[in-house]
């Protein structure tokens, strides 16, 4: 959905700072970044659930560490990278000793532990991402236990092993304990705390300091001279950094073309035009977002979809190259599993590349349907697809209206499936309706609350068969996708269940996967299995296009393009 796509772009910008020393540049100019996604909700980031809020705060507060385009660790507030104990249960974090809050008081391990124990894990705050810090201990959900060791060191102890927990730890950002204690226990007071809503406490923890935020207009931060990373090279080199909000993509593009803004994401149809503009550089970078066609494997979907061969047949009728060319204007790569190419765990899928030659063939697809009994062979040898009773097959495809890319994919799928004799009815519904009527499910006839995965017998309110969706895989911890593909996955709304897949996810999150070699092999096996099983038809990973004015220097295009944005400068 629109917000997820933007999450990727903004998180690219937000992850920042490089270790290598840079020659000092001249500080000048105001860098304006244009976006047509929605405005942020709050600067009190611990309460936020939207990506824009995290993006804004990211300019003033660094996390412990981040990654460059090749996933090398870039230390930020952490003095050394997080150390993991032999048994993978104890994580030791040492922070820099020169971090200060705005009032000059030092940032200590106490602030980090307080943020975890008394804010995130508290019951009065309802922290939105609590599950990141929870684990299952003999089927009871428990929080990890953070402890202060000394002023600049603290540990986080787990009872179960999760090799990918380290990525969560590296992302940790602190709240000032000396301010937060004033509002402890009172969610309303905490929500409306002036210090947190105006970021008055950020000290030297970020390249910029908060100036003003005019809702639906712009978010303005100014250069932070005491920035701990920028002291010797007097980074950052922009006087001010402004996030400018536009009502529609068209006006955002116009502003980039007119030179009023320094950066804007460019939609596929306009990339060629911007490439032709001399004073604008367009970088095409991979993203972690992928388009997919989900099959309703629950009881109110077409029962044929429950069979792997049928799903494979459908995938053989839908061309990934055609989709990328016609819908994404070429800005996409065929996808066969949910692991994006830039991810270190990506492995080349040799076989089971459905939707691409040679496994893109209408006749083969029809044969496979014939084998599974969903087609009849006529005298002249031609195969006619039909359901068990011989009636012509009619499937319902649903996606959210207002998202052009997904509507176009829907139209393309309808066209291609009709080529093999399957009639598709398109249903475009608003996102909120899609969530309530098609995604959420419950066991019919019971008083069960609507949820995204209420077990095998649960069904959605409205029947559907196919759904065009867009998910995002965290490149470093693809195992997070178990929320979609594992039987108990929180968002496994289409009811896919495969014990082998569950087992692999389990092992990736277990002790044996501490050894990265083993984990890579497990991921490889998982990718191959998923490509073969076709729980969903993985269509394509999308490429994003970032347009910069030519005079912005220091940009390194890649998956985490924004990691060194504090070193960018105007020529």
């Amino acid at each position, binding site marked *: 959905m629109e917000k997820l796509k933007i999450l990727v772009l903004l998180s690219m910008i937000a992850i920042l700072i490089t270790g290598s020393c840079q020659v000092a540049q001249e500080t000048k100019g105001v860098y304006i970044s244009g976006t047509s996604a929605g405005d942020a909700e709050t600067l009190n980031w611990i309460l936020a659930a939207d990506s824009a809020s995290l993006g804004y705060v990211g300019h003033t507060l660094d996390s412990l560490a981040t990654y460059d385009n090749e996933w090398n660790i870039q230390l930020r507030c952490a003095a050394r990278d997080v150390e993991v104990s032999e048994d993978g249960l104890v994580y030791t974090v040492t922070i820099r000793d020169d971090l200060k809050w705005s009032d000059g008081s030092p940032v200590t391990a106490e602030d980090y532990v307080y943020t975890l124990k008394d804010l995130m894990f508290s019951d009065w705050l309802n922290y939105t991402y609590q599950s990141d810090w929870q684990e299952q201990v003999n089927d009871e959900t428990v929080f990890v236990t953070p402890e202060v060791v000394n002023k600049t060191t603290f540990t986080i102890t787990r009872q179960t092993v999760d090799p990918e927990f380290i990525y969560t730890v590296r992302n940790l950002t602190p709240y000032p304990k000396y301010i937060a204690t004033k509002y402890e226990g009172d969610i309303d007071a905490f929500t409306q705390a002036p210090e947190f809503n105006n970021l008055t406490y950020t000290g030297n923890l970020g390249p910029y300091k908060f100036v003003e935020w005019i809702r639906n207009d712009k978010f303005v931060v100014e250069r932070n001279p005491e920035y701990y990373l920028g002291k010797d090279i007097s980074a950052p080199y922009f006087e001010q950094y402004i996030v400018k909000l536009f009502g529609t993509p068209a006006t955002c593009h116009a502003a980039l073309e007119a030179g009023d803004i320094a950066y804007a994401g460019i939609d596929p*149809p*306009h990339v*060629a*035009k911007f490439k032709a503009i001399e004073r604008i550089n367009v970088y*095409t970078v991979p993203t972690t977002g992928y388009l997919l066609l989900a099959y309703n494997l629950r009881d109110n979907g077409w029962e044929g979809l429950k069979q792997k061969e049928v799903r494979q047949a459908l995938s053989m009728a839908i061309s990934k190259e055609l989709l990328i*060319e016609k819908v994404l204007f070429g800005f996409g790569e065929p996808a066969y599993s949910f692991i994006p190419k830039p991810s270190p765990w990506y492995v080349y899928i040799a076989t089971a590349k459905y939707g691409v030659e040679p496994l893109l063939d209408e006749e083969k697809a029809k044969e496979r349907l014939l084998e599974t009994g969903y087609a009849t062979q006529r005298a002249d040898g031609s195969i006619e697809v039909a359901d068990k009773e011989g009636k012509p097959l009619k499937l319902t495809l649903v996606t959210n209206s207002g998202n*052009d890319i997904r509507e*176009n994919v829907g*139209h393309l799928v309808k066209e291609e499936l009709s080529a093999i004799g399957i009639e598709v009815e398109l249903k*475009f519904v608003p996102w909120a309706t899609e969530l309530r009527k098609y995604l959420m499910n419950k066991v019919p006839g019971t008083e069960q609350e609507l949820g995204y995965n209420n077990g095998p017998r649960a069904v959605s309110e409205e029947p559907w068969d196919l759904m065009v969706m867009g998910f995002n895989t965290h490149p470093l911890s693809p195992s997070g996708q178990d929320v979609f593909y594992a039987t108990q996955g929180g968002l496994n709304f289409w009811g896919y269940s495969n014990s082998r897949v569950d087992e692999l996810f389990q092992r990736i999150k277990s002790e044996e996967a501490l050894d990265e070699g083993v984990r890579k092999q497990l991921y490889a096996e998982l990718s191959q299995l998923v490509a073969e099983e076709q729980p969903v038809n993985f269509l394509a990973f999308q490429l994003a296009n970032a347009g910069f004015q030519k005079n912005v220097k220091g940009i390194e295009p890649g998956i985490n393009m924004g990691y060194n944005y504090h070193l960018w400068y105007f020529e």
Partner: protein
Amino acid sequence: MTNRLKNIKPIAQKVGDVKNSIFITVIALLGITLLLDIFVVEKIFNPLTYLYIVLGILFVRYGIPLLYTSRRLIQYYWQRASRNKLAVGGLAFILFLILLALIGPLFTADPTAVNFEEKNLPPPGFTLEESVYDLKTGQFITNRITGTTQHPLGTDDKGRDLLAMIISGARVSLQVGLFATGIAIALGTLIGVTAAYLGGKMDNVLMRFTDIMMTFPFFLLLVFIVFIFGPNLALIVIVIGLTGWTGTARLIRSETLSLRTREFIMASKALGASDGRIILSHLIPNVISLIIVIATLSIPGVILAEAALSFIGLGDPTVASWGMILKAGQQNLDTTWWVAVAPGIMLFLTVLAFNFLGDGLRDAFDPRSNV
């Protein structure tokens, strides 16, 4: 002379009964299908068709007899209105549009037929350079697309024929325009005239009710309700109709306020005419010129309101109204400009036609104007 009137009376009475009985049976039938529709899963009619049927029946039951009895009046007014050439032109265009909306789709391609091979085709005589990125080489493959006469207005980004979409769009936009305005004007006029005519407490009550209704910002309320109950054309029409009447009510009231003190109203009161009769046969015909001005102005306004709803993503997705085409076209104005231009021009001509017709009728109905 009077005895002829005498023997007509019983006949008229009988005919009236027959008409009433047919009318009641039809309404009963409709009620049953509605009940069936709600409880039986398979939808017999969608809500908008109900609206047509009800309006159709009302028109047959009350509209046609009214038109028949006042056919001489209509002939007279039409004779005066037709002197204004542009009004005739406007009416011709509107009739053409209605015809287009009704039978047009039979002659054109299927507006929903998607064909990605023919996407972004410009109108004949124009070309478009469209380039696709080749991942392997990192270069762009640009191909020139030239318009074909098969698609006189070109195609949109899904390869659908724009001419066909405009024609099917005409139906939607006209429906929204005519029905919503119809409901709004009828309500507005009735409340406005009654308030001004009765005056005193009644005027106060009605006007305060209008104030309450009017204080809801019209567009905010429309977006609000459509967002909550989901974008559906019938809902949009009804909501616009039920909330759009307040302006009309105030205008009609101010016009009737000055009319009320005129002699001919006093005279008919003196002759013992009932209030209802005075309102219907004396006051309303006199404000008809203002009603027409309001109607011709609000029809385009309503069509634009639907376009605005589509622009912010709340248009009925199952329907290709001009608003939806405009929204899609507006996003790529710099590349596929013709997608937005076609509905833009149609909207412009429709608005112009309604207003010229409105002018013609306004002057025709104005007793003092020397047409």
